[in-house]
């Protein structure tokens, strides 16, 4: 797997490269500026790009803009975006073109190396990795979810994060058959067309959650008031 890292913080960039190389992954280039990143993408034709949202010059959403541009140039490039905090607008902007080969994670998830590598491989393999915090924010917006059982909610969350059936079963310590049954129930309760491909499933679930208006005032609460994620 050929990887390009775009991260302007030297220590973090170095740390990421170190971590990935220690896992025998091929970090072909690192960049500290969106322009350098795009050059590296053109030059090295990587499989995956790991991109920080905040990049110079203004440190707002240059990373997202660069990631979208990189995808436009190389549609089969997998992109994993790292963010200092959950910003719904960024996630939406990123996922507007579909959820395949896309990831959006909080930076600190990288420290849980196994989970991070899992997300990386999933994205590289055509899947999706959405941060649990993003999913949790989305789930809180929807009153229709009250119809789901607690177990079904767990399955829905993991599904929205981009996990496949096997991973969900492992995560919840149930059989794959049970997961399959839960998913069927969820899709029926939410009036979604059933599908088995993970990325389409994620897209469907996310689109459903995105289009649900926020019913309670506290649902619009800023990210720092959110409950800690499950990892």
């Amino acid at each position, binding site marked *: 797997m050929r990887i390009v890292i775009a991260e302007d913080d030297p*220590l973090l960039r170095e740390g*990421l490269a170190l971590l990935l190389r220690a896992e025998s992954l091929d970090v072909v280039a690192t960049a500290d500026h969106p322009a350098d990143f795009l050059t590296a993408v053109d030059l090295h034709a990587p499989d995956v790009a790991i991109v920080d949202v905040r990049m110079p010059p203004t*440190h707002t959403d240059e990373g997202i803009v660069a990631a979208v541009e990189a995808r436009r140039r190389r549609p089969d490039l997998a992109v994993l975006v790292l963010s*200092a905090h959950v910003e719904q607008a960024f996630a939406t902007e990123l996922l507007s073109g579909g959820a395949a080969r896309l990831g959006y994670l909080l*930076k600190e998830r*990288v*420290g849980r190396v196994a989970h991070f590598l899992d997300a990386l491989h999933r994205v590289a393999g055509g899947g999706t990795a959405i941060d649990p915090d993003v999913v949790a924010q989305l789930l809180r917006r929807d009153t229709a979810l009250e119809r789901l059982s607690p177990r079904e909610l767990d399955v829905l969350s993991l599904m929205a994060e981009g996990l496949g059936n096997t991973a969900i079963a492992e995560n919840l310590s149930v059989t794959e058959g049970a997961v399959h049954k839960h998913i069927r129930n969820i899709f029926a309760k939410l009036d979604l067309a059933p599908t088995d491909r993970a990325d389409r499933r994620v897209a469907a679930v996310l689109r459903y959650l995105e289009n649900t208006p926020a019913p309670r005032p506290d649902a619009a609460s800023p990210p720092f008031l959110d409950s800690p994620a499950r990892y």
Partner: protein
Amino acid sequence: MPAEHCGRTRARGEVRQRLLCRARRALDALEQLVGGLGTAILAVIVLIALAAAALASALGIGTFLRPAALRGLRFVADRERARLSHCGPEMIDPRPAPAGVRAAAADPSVRRELSWLITHSTFGMAVGLAGAPVPYYVVRDLTYPLYWWAVPGDASERSPEFWDVHGFADALYAPLAGLGWAVAFMGLAPAMARLQAWPGRRLLSPVPVTDLSLRVARLSATRAAALDAHATELRRIERSLHDGTQNRLVAVTVMLGATRRALARDPSGAAALLGRAQDASEQALAELREVVRGILPPVLDDRGLAGALAGLVAACAVPCRLNVDVPGRCAASVEATAYFVVAEALTNISRHSGARRAAVTVRRHRDRLLLWIGDDGDGGADETRGSGLAGIRHRVQALDGRLIVTSPPGGPTTLEAELPCGS
């Protein structure tokens, strides 16, 4: 008997007090009359200039004269405003002078200034000429017996007043006249000064509507600037936390994660990774300290403004004299801003100025804190390059204060700041 005596003494004391007070007021009035006479002379000059400009315009050659004449009008009106503010309630400046002649003609404040100019150059001049020489008459008449013999001319010519002076006996009446002048002046001068100032007070103050809208505009502007600076400050703090401290901590977790993987696989590499994790966490701590210091330096709380500034001065690479005379404490935001102003100035001095000596003076004048930082360096400090000075200006403006940087090429550089104390 003793009681009566005492009462008489008290009465005498009161009379003296009153006389002194009268004399002081008469002196103030004299100062005002003389000042008014001065602006009246200026007004005559400007009036002549305006008339010349109008005449030239009628002949079609006044294009260059008109703006100058208008500036002259504004100048003399401003002088009168400053004079009146000095000896009475403050006169607020109207808006900046209108750009063109047509705009000026349409501006009510310009028309009012013009009416004042005509009144003051005639009536104000007359009152000034009537009142200002009186003290001279007083002195002349009181001392007349001392020098009457030296005054040339015949009996009626040499007399200071209306009677003929044939000899010393006649001259002895003059001090009586002088006394009369003095009494008249003490009684009338304040009223004359008020009379002379009256057209100015009426015509040079902004129209009431303008006054309020001006004040509202000024307050809105400073308030908006304050909110803006506040938001900028919050953004700065948020950014330094997110991009600095948080990134360091993320790096720590990344290193720790890598260490755990390494321990499971190849424990020998783990120590190096742990070292890096520790470095990163130390950096995070250092940056956190910086951020906190940038919000409100703890030293201000511990040692007060004078102590905090002494610390800054002691750490300055250039020998620096510190002079702080600030009784009591100012609002925390004001002290913090003063601290940052001095810190930035001293940083610039030791980094860029090439100065051999520097001085920091801090004073409190009524409800304002005044800062003065100077050096004998090369000067040429430019606010547009480097964000330090600009950042300081924002902080100062947010408190509705003023910052003046004087730094000609070749030096020296002085930085003056004025902050409302807020306490």
